[in-house]
């Protein structure tokens, strides 16, 4: 069944490729419809836990390569929710790509990506997982950069870090397999065996975990891999950014939930002499700190960026930080909160990116100080963005609130005061950048050149409306999502949280979201009523406001320079500048790349020596080999 779906995906990709550029409307609609079909099929797979499909590829020597697909609770959950979000995004991209001057012929890559997305979630052995992971990586590389030079640089950030992670995982996989006590490629059994091995060989287990964590962190942009989303999300096609931020970045978290977290839980159960901090293994605690650092760092970087897509990307980084921290608490609430936040973030962040995509679709601008006042021109987009950032800031009645509530519950009930502080700091910081973005893009004054901007076509509004509804819906009744999450958490060997549709019971307190939501919605309408009956505003031309009516172009400046959103958080930036200059990890990566290049150039000089020189290398090499050989 699963293999059939994947096979159909491949066939669909081929069909899409064959349709060609002329029929771009057809191919994009076709792919969206196809994805709808996939979603329908996935829904039908619910409940068939434990089903495994095996396809032997070949065996050579002592290794047998086979593709194994199975349905786990966690996997199904991820597959289904990502597919739903994916459908939303694809409906958006139909219109987006129909109106592109030249559609880049990347539709078939999208379909392949969707297929590998499913394959990742349905793989039950590491080989399959790795294959799907690799396909996902290279397809997304070409989607991010379909021939644009800027986006190539950005995609490189993503790609190199991802491939680095992938190779780390590859070594980890084969290290697992080469360890005699484990010698399996099955994910589930490798967890159990690794946990047992941790008693006798903690070093090996530590290294294997480190390799996998490296890979997952790289994909999920956890510190120190945080630079790539800002580059890649920002430069990717506008309809792909929601996918990147909503789904792609979650694969690492899926890996952590699939492998690392259950492994730690198992180790805690079977291994009595593991070093603990606050009731969790010390490694887990360290990893949780990585999450916390990511959260704070992401927030800071979002605050100081002026590009609206970069801002949203760094916001993603910081949200990943929350989820990672929460997951590594290893308590039921922690894992549930992390998982729930993953879903919520996927929903609200894709909604935000969709609305940003809509803005860019109409205005072709990305820098916030060139925008403003679009709220009245694009009401649905505005509403989506508004609710999205409310959710991102974790304000009731939207979904972000529910997951953040659980995360705080988990952190506090596990007695992690410092982690809580970090997360709280990051969460507060979120207000700074989110509302700045809202204000700069949608509120304030409309630049003259955007006077004729219209709302996006209805087909593009549909996904945004869906996003609004699901944000509200999950915020009102988090139980819809939390119940399947409970199943997945239970499968990891934890007691799931007690939840009902509109009730969440934590260790410290419990909350009825229905009541909270109703209160907030009531308050909103109350305030809205004041707005309606209050005094009407006067319309003021932007330049009247900034330059007292004088045209800045007369003295050689542009109106944008007077925009309040320009260098909005410059003081903050100034405060942190000394630290940023020293600790900017991007510089280290850049230096690495530069050095690699010059290293290569130096090495290749060796091959340009004279004939005598190359003989010299020959003989010198031989002598060195002989001498070293005798000594070894």
């Amino acid at each position, binding site marked *: 069944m699963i293999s059939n779906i994947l096979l159909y995906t491949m066939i669909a990709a081929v069909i899409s490729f064959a349709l060609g550029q002329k029929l771009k409307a057809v191919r994009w609609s076709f792919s969206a419809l196809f994805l709808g079909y996939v979603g329908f099929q996935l829904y039908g797979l619910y409940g068939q836990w434990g089903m495994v499909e095996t396809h032997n590829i070949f065996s050579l020597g002592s290794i047998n390569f086979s593709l194994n697909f199975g349905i786990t609770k966690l996997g199904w959950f991820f597959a289904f929710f990502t597919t739903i979000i994916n459908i939303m995004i694809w409906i958006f991209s139909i219109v987006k790509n129909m109106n592109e001057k030249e559609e880049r012929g990347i539709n078939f890559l999208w379909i392949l990506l969707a297929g590998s997305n499913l394959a990742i979630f349905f793989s039950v052995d590491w*080989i399959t997982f790795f294959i799907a992971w690799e396909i996902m990586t290279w397809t997304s590389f070409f989607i991010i*950069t379909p021939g644009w030079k800027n986006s190539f640089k950005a995609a490189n950030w993503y790609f190199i870090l991802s491939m680095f992670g992938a190779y780390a995982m590859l*070594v980890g996989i084969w290290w697992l397999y080469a360890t005699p006590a484990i010698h399996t490629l099955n994910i589930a059994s490798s967890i159990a065996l690794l946990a047992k091995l941790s008693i006798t060989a903690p070093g090996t287990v530590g290294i294997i975990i480190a390799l996998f964590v490296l890979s997952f962190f790289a994909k999920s942009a956890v510190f120190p891999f945080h630079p790539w989303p800002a580059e890649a999300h920002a430069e990717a096609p506008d309809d792909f950014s929601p996918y990147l931020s909503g789904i792609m970045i979650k694969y690492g978290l899926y890996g952590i939930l699939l492998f690392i977290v259950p492994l730690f839980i198992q180790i805690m159960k079977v291994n009595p002499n593991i070093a603990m901090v606050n009731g969790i293994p010390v490694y887990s605690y360290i990893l949780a700190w990585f999450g916390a650092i990511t959260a704070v760092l992401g927030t800071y970087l979002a605050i100081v960026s002026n590009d609206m897509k970069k801002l949203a990307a760094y916001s993603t980084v910081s949200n990943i930080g929350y989820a990672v921290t929460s997951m590594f608490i290893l308590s039921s609430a922690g894992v549930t909160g992390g998982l729930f936040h993953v879903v919520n973030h996927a929903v609200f962040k894709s909604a935000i990116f969709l609305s940003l995509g809509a803005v860019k679709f109409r205005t072709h601008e990305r820098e916030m100080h060139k925008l403003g006042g679009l709220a009245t021109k694009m009401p649905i987009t505005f509403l989506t963005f508004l609710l999205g950032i409310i959710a991102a800031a974790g304000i009731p009645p939207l979904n972000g609130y529910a997951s953040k509530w659980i995360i705080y519950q988990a952190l506090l009930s596990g007695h992690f005061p410092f982690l809580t502080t970090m997360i709280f700091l990051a969460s507060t910081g979120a207000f700074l950048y989110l509302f700045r973005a809202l204000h700069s893009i949608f509120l304030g004054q409309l630049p003259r050149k955007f006077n004729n901007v219209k709302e996006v076509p209805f087909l593009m509004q549909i996904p945004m409306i869906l996003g609004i509804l699901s944000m509200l819906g999950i915020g009102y009744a988090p139980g819809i999502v939390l119940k399947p999450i409970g199943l997945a958490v239970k499968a990891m060997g934890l007691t799931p949280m007690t939840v009902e549709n509109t009730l969440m019971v934590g260790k410290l307190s419990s909350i009825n979201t229905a009541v909270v939501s109703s209160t907030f919605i009531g308050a909103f309408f109350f305030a809205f009523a004041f707005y309606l009956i209050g005094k009407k505003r006067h319309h003021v031309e932007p330049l009247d406001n900034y330059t007292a009516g004088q045209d800045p172009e007369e003295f050689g400046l542009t109106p944008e320079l007077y925009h309040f959103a320009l260098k909005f958080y410059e003081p903050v930036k100034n405060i942190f500048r000394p630290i940023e200059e020293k600790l900017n990890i991007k510089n280290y990566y850049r230096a690495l790349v530069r050095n690699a290049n010059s290293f290569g150039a130096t090495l290749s000089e060796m091959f340009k020596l004279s004939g005598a020189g190359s003989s010299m290398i*020959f003989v010198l090499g031989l002598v*060195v080999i*002989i001498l070293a050989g005798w000594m070894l």
Partner: protein
Amino acid sequence: MKSNYAVLLIAIPLLVAFLQPLFSLINKRLTKWVTFLTIGFNFIYSLKLLNYVMANGAQIAIIGNWKPPFGINLYLSPFSMLFATIIYFVALIVLLVYLIDKPTEVDDRMSIATLLMVMASGAITLTGDIFNMFVFVEILSISTVILISFNNKGISFKGAFRYIVLASLGSSMLLLAIGFIYGSLGTLNLASIAYRFNLLNPVYASVIVFLFMAGIMVEAELFPFNAWVPEAYKGSKSYLNALLSGVVGTTGIYVLFRMFITIFGSGQNHIQVIGSVNFNAVIIVIGVLTTLIGEFSALSQKDIKKILAFSSMAQMGIIAVTIGVANMNSINAGIFHLINHAFSKSLLFIVAFPIINIVGSANIDKWEGLGRKNIFLAIAFAIGSFGLIGIPFFNGFWSKMMIVESVVSAGGWMYLVIGTILLSALVETFYFFRIIFKLFVDKKIESTYSVHIFIYLAILILSIIVIYIGIKPSFLATYIHKAAIDLVDKSHYISTVLGVIK
């Protein structure tokens, strides 16, 4: 003895090569076709023999009616026939392109050189005598020089000269090694060397292995014996580079495999080269250094031929590592990767040929927008590089997976080795993706060059193979499995050739 007819694989091309001057008196274009048909015959015949030895086990072909170890024999086994077949096949595809390349004054000589080169490579894989191998290595290197200088540019001559200097140095070493072998063991037959190599004083044995290594690693493109690689590739025509990489390099690595595993090696699951020196470690270090140097050097290059040259050097390094690791899985992986590399790299070189003609430059910066001009070539290039990098469901993926597995399972300091290899693989991935990206940049290219149908045919065949192996590697797996067993099973080799059981 039916298997004696296998010598036709060498005799017929030689006969034809001697006849070629007569054909060239009739028409120079005719010689191209004669070469093509002869290689075609070789390919078909070797395919037949391959299936024969797959079914009936290894055979020997004796020459001059002298049985080994007294005369020269050919050893037909799954391993040697597999590689002979692949070499003939790659050559056949390359010749397809050569057929339609614009005629030159020296086509007759060139087609003889190509024919002899391919013949020599096949003979090296088949022969069971070390001096005979030396003679064919010399034919191979001389014809390679001709191939390189065919392009008739200054750099071709420079590259050819550099190559021939190193090859002469190497062949001196090889001949010294042969002298040492004959002086001690009194034989030149490979099986009988294998049979009694462990009787030698280990220090003396190490001398032989050192010299042999230096001699053959020139052809195998392994550092530090490979200084000829970039310049020679740059100087030669792009599609002929497919021969340099897919035939010369493959042959070199083949000899390393055969000599270090079967002849000089001993042991069952983990083959150790005999001698007072840990040669396995030496080869691994050489392989790792080659990979590192190759990939990083390729990163800094702009010229496609140099990039591909450095890349093939690096791949040879990876395969050398598998020779050094020398457990059953790594040998499987090495053979598999060697085959994959031959196909993918030939595809890339052949695709580069029309692209260079369309764009008018081998500089990859000028390749921008080729995908808009000719999507087929761009996709073929992508397929080739995917096969080389090891993207899932392309051929290189499986072999690279197996290499990582086998190296990791060797444990110990191999983790360092695999780390370095994967770092280099990361670099390789990067620069190939950079090229593929450039192909799809939005840019108009003005060109009147029209790509000949034969080039498309060659590209299509190789692309299909690359993808087919990627999707269904099991059909190759049976061949590789038998080849690896043939390679490792020293006593079987000896008993097949000499009739004595170790």
